[in-house]
């Protein structure tokens, strides 16, 4: 779940102030520290209302991995005013849809509903921000649900299990190496006390960002936010965790076999700076590099491995740039029948060596940037996407301005910067290379 969210947001982290007017984004802060962002889109009488908490998998206490995600489930299990399970039913009864998601760095709750129900959903979110009322029985039942979710998303999928292993190896002791959903045995240790402790330490208006996109005006949102959220008191919060990304001494290699695998896979992840930790321009260069290397059928990995050398059936790259700490840059390829993973890796390494030794040519660079910037225009077509982009940016410590100037910063990336980013960051020491194969028959 974390990887999908990060990949989506990283790819779409912007609103393009392109030809037509860019959305006028308004941001303000209430006296109790709650931040509010308003993104108007009057094409449909609908709003997307999101509440983002600056708390995620990295805030799970040692030994209790999965608690941030488990707690996200528990936020639906009742307050002093709203019975367990009722919140989603109330939203549905008002013609709305709701859900939530957790990543390493944040947890977000959202509703999509008719514009005249914004008052209702704010009331519901403000209520559960402070008034959660959990029974041990509901916690226990929901723990079973989370264990089923882990089975569904991870344990039934050998590639998902494999990805967990790679991340654990890459980040050493940093909590990014733990799965957001948690390790199986640790999920089982989470009870009502642990959950309420997490709630008290992280859920407060001064640790939250409300994003409203859709058929609204800033004044309207300000008035409603003040009414519902404004009366909530600040809480003293523990300082946000700031764990070390310890130095790596050498590359890690994992060779895994699994009885459920039918299609072999070569996957490598590098530890690289994020939009938050990178020097100016470097994250944008990594973004361009990822697309140039493996963003589509005209990319280097695809052209080199799939089209020209016929070593792979598919190949790609991604950059999970929207993270608070050192993050992942990934490259992958699926070998064609009859091609060894060793041969495939050799081919992949040759392509990576090329981009380190010479800058891309102008046409290739401009094409890559055009696709990225166009993505930002298409993102403006969806109020839900816009809300997610802004919410994610602010949750990890970026600003509204960072989002709005992203297309310009992408356009400003030079060929030399792309090459330099590859040389400086796609280095062996900072990598885990994994191969996943079917279990050999004995």
């Amino acid at each position, binding site marked *: 779940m974390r990887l999908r969210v990060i990949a989506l947001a990283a790819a779409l982290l912007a609103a393009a102030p392109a030809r037509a007017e860019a959305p006028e984004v308004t941001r303000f802060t209430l006296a109790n520290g709650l931040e509010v962002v308003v993104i108007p889109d009057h094409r*449909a009488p609908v709003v997307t209302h999101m509440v983002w908490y600056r708390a995620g998998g990295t805030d799970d206490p040692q030994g209790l991995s999965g608690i941030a995600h488990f707690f996200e489930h528990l936020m639906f299990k009742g307050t002093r005013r709203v019975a367990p399970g009722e919140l989603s039913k109330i939203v549905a009864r008002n013609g709305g849809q709701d859900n939530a998601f957790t990543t390493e760095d944040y947890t977000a709750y959202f509703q999509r509903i008719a514009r005249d129900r914004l008052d209702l959903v704010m009331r519901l979110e403000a209520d559960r921000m402070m008034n959660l009322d959990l029974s041990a029985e509901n916690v226990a039942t929901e723990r079973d*649900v989370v264990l*089923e979710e882990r089975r569904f998303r991870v344990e*039934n999928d050998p*590639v998902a299990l494999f990805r967990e292993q790679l991340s654990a190896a890459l980040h050493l002791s940093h909590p990014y190496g733990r799965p957001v959903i948690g390790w199986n045995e640790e999920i089982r240790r989470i009870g009502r006390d642990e959950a309420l402790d997490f709630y008290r330490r992280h859920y407060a208006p001064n640790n939250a960002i409300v994003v409203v996109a859709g058929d609204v005006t800033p004044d309207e949102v300000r008035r409603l936010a003040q009414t519902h959220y404004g009366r909530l008191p600040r809480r003293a919060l523990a300082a946000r965790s700031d764990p070390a990304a310890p130095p790596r001494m050498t590359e890690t290699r994992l060779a895994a076999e699994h009885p459920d695998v039918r299609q072999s896979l070569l996957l490598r992840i590098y530890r690289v700076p994020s939009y938050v930790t990178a020097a100016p321009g470097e994250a944008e260069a990594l973004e361009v590099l990822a697309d140039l290397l493996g963003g*589509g059928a005209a990319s280097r990995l695809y052209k080199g491995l799939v089209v020209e050398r016929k070593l792979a059936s598919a190949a790609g790259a991604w950059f999970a740039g929207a993270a608070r700490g050192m993050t992942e840059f990934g490259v992958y390829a699926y070998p064609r029948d009859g091609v060894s993973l060793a041969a495939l890796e050799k081919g992949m390494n040759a392509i990576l060596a090329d981009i380190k030794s010479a800058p891309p040519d102008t046409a290739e660079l401009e094409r890559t940037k055009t696709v990225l910037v166009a993505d930002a*225009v298409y993102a403006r*077509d969806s109020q839900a996407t816009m809300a997610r982009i802004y919410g994610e940016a602010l949750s990890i410590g970026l600003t509204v301005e960072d989002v709005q100037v992203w297309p310009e910063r992408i356009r400003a990336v030079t060929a030399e910067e792309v090459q330099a980013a590859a040389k400086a960051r796609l280095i062996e020491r900072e990598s885990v290379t994994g191969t996943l194969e079917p279990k050999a028959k004995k």
Partner: protein
Amino acid sequence: MSARHRLIAGVMLAFAALPARALDIQTPPAPEGMELWLVEDHTLPMIAMTASFPAGSAYDPQGKGGLAAFAAGLIDEGAGEYDATAFTEALDERGIRFSASPDREHLIVSLQTLTEEAGAAFRLLGIALSQPRFAPDAVERVRAQLLAVLKRNEEDPAQVASEAWSRIYFGDHPYGRPVSGTKEEVRAITQADLKAFAARHWVRGAAQIAVAGDVTAERLAKLLDSAFGALPLREVPALPPPERTGAPGTHHVTRDIGQATAIFGAPGILRHDPDFIPAYVANYVLGGGGFSSRLMDEVREKRGLAYGVSTGLVTLSKAGIFAGQVATEASRIGESLDLIRSELRRFAEDGVTGDELDDAKTYLTGAFPLAFDSNGKIAGQLNAFQRDGLAPGYIDERQALIEAVTEEDVQRAARRLFAPEALTIVIAGPEEKPSTAAAP
């Protein structure tokens, strides 16, 4: 094959006082043999199109399963004067997004373009559909990709269960075959097969197009002509109705995994059946309504037996299916299925309460505008209605149709569709131990 990743009629809530905002659907003239719906919106400088052609996997000839998917995978792998790389570069340098994927009955093509690149976008789309190269190296490339996908599908218990279910339910009928075919069939498909399929199915004749965004009817006519004018005008024969619709009972596919996935289904209802809307409402209450559904309540919320449990109505042109899915720890999948069966029985016997019906109507009418809040979603949703054989006026009629459903209507639909004994069930999971055999 590469894929770039991815009027609201009246006010639905009886008690709301919002001004009605109608989705203004135009039906301008289109190239002969094509049905066109257009929603103009000039707010953003972009255009979204979803188009469908009668080119789905049900048209795969016997022994050539995967042909429709194979052809779809080649749609951006070289056409006209462009080889595969040149075609992708032509899209990328203009920021055009283009993808095509088949389902059982249709090839669904999606195009998004900035306004200023629309001319090129529609021209490239037209070349892709009317002059596909199917060059030998591209064919081998996409073959390798399909084989990789088939292998990945074998790793996924839900996919395995679903394919087994279709095969068991429909037998030899085209609906029973996997959309992506089988490895043996995909290995045997030739360039000649692909060219013949495209020539027969990527045609005007039953094509349906929905467009939303920054384009007038007048400009769109020219764009569509450049895209589709060169396609032959040809009728595609209708699919035969299936002879077999179900194999009631429980069937097993052995997978040594911790969580079993069960797919269950029975004969459903066709889209134009007078009882479709009552059935749709009944399904929402039973298992289509997420956390508002009875099955979520019983299976997940009360007992923690599953992360997801849901039901839905599938409407193909020649068959309707009522189907659902649940995944539970292997030793307890029987419990989940017992609960589902008893909920079906209870629903058929007792129907819905007045409150349940009111809540369902409020959701189904109230959430309708959520499907139309972007150009991309408008194009996609309207094309879905076109494929269902609905008229543009449906957008305005839908609210009244849902509001008119009575408790008796819902119970009649439930008695027709929710019959536990009629269920065909496939479980992908570990081998069953005799002591935990599920009751039939």
